[in-house]
């Protein structure tokens, strides 16, 4: 059974530097997949290889079972929204959207009609005769999206398209892009380094680091069941605690700082060194130890109050810990205090790597 988009063992070398190591991924039709990772992790390189602007040193990209490797970018029928939108400054919005149709031999009348429909879909009805420089950043973004979609591409690639927008507009565009993508059912690859963007938009997140895929899973899986320390640290806030499994069957681990912990071993073997992940929002603060929870004493260093919630940072032994609690729960504390932090055994996730 072939997937819609298949990336097979792609390796990319720039001289001595290997940007991608044997990257493989399968994407289903209609799926919204996000490539997430820090800059230089290989996510954009992978995107450019799919688009045809970079050539893989080895490996192949297939769409519907057909290899793209022999095709030039203009033969691939892939829509791309670039980081800076790349709208043609000498063409109106309507002519920008008409351009891919023009290249496909559409007449001007029919082409502009289709372009107008697409501009309507992205919420820019009546803006067709404006030039790009007469449009706001968000509007330019929408034109770029309409232009990348109007020719019914086999894939839509988005290269950090929201980076240049301010926070409110960014959130609005996240919802818009998602809506349009669902409506058209186009298979989409979205590249970002913003983990909240990845969480809110994707069907699946592919986490890149140093040219390798660390994990490819649903947003909730990536968040709650990260496969590696890197994923746990990169997606969301985390407390990462080194430990060793003492009894996998009974769910027991030993940590140099926290002592014995109850965990679910997740397939880790007895005696294996692991990392325990506890998300800061799963930690509770109290004056005294709480029954039924694992307790530890924390020296509070810093309290950052956001109003509705607060971030409490401190140390347990020589281990830095952070807890995210409701704003009102932090009133009992002051920086420099010692308090009790506690969590439920099921809040602990064991990372093998």
């Amino acid at each position, binding site marked *: 059974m072939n997937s819609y988009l298949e990336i097979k063992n792609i390796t990319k070398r720039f001289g001595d530097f290997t940007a991608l190591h044997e990257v493989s991924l399968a994407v289903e039709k209609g799926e919204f997949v996000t490539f997430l990772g820090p800059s230089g992790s290989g996510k954009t390189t992978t995107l450019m290889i799919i*688009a045809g*602007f970079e050539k893989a040193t080895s490996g192949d990209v297939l769409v519907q079972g057909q290899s793209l490797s022999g095709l030039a970018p203009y033969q691939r029928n892939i829509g791309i929204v670039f980081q*800076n939108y*790349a709208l043609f400054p000498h063409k*109106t919005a309507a002519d920008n959207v008409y351009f891919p149709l023009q290249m496909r031999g559409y007449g001007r009348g029919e082409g502009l009609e289709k372009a107008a429909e697409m501009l309507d879909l992205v919420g820019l009805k009546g803006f067709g005769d404006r030039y790009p420089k007469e449009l706001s950043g968000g509007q330019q973004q929408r034109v770029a999206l309409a232009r*990348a979609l109007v*020719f019914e591409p086999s894939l839509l690639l988005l290269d950090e398209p929201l980076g240049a927008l301010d926070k409110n507009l960014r959130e609005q565009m996240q919802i818009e892009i998602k809506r349009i993508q669902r409506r058209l059912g186009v298979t989409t690859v979205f590249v970002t380094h913003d983990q909240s963007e990845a969480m809110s938009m994707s069907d699946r997140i592919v986490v890149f680091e140093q040219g390798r895929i660390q994990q490819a899973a649903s947003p909730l899986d990536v968040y709650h069941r990260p496969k590696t320390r890197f994923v746990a640290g990169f997606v969301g806030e985390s407390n990462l605690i080194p430990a060793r499994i003492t009894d996998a069957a009974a769910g027991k681990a030993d940590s140099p700082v926290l002592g014995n912990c109850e965990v679910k071993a997740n397939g880790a073997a007895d005696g294996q060194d692991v990392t325990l992940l506890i998300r800061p929002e799963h930690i509770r603060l109290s004056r005294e130890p709480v029954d039924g929870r694992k307790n530890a004493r924390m020296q509070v260093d810093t309290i950052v109050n956001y109003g509705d919630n607060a971030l409490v940072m401190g140390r347990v032994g020589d281990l830095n810990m952070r807890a995210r609690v409701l704003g009102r729960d932090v009133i009992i504390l002051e920086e420099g205090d010692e308090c009790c932090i506690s969590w439920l055994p099921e809040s602990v996730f064991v990372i093998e790597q």
Partner: protein
Amino acid sequence: MNRLMRILGVLVVIFIAAPLVIVVPMSFSDARSLQFPPPGYWLGYYYAFFNDWGWLRPTWNSIIIAAATMVLTMILVVPATFALVRYRFYGKSVADLMMMMPLAVPHIVMAVGYYSFLGDLRLVHTHFGVILAHTCLAVPIAFLVLSANLKGFDRTLERAAQSLGASPVRTFMHVTLPILRPGIMISALFAFIQSFDETVVAIFISGRNAETLPRKMFDSIRQEADPVIAVISTLLFAVVILALVAPAGWKSIRKRLRSKTPPAAILGSQ
């Protein structure tokens, strides 16, 4: 401080504009030679200019030579600029230097060189000879203007065009060229002006046959200080002003036309 700068600015403007203030009234003067302020005004020297083949022929020569220089320069400079700005190749820095050389070498030195070199080719005193020499002088200037434009060109636009289905040739025709068009036009304009203005090389090699306007003016001012020179200067100044104002005027006309087109055209009512 601010005030001082402003006064300085005004002084600079006056200093630059002063020759014009003198030349334009002198062209309407009825004095027998160049004289300022003019004792009286008439259009006699304009009449003289337009009725004297001694003046019209060099004018025509200059226009032909400048136009041909412009075309030849652009044929050479457009591909050269793309190569030098976008690609790395063996000997690139040497090529860069050679492009700029005519700017650094004094014109008089170039002129002596052309005189003997073109003499061997029997091209001295011909239009073609002057065109070749002027092209050498225009190339670095056209290259400087165009390369600045090309360096500022966002290549993502070309990638976008290709992702949208445009082959490299169509990308060039539909995206690269139209966006660079103003830069290419300014570059061509500079090539034209470079040739039209050039005096030193023209004095050496243009001879009687291909005599250019600046050469004729130089000869004339040496011999008789004919006020027709002021007429020509004024006319040239008017042409330059027109060339500068025309694009802006054209733009505003187009904008007005565009705003009158109803959005129905965009909705595909053709």
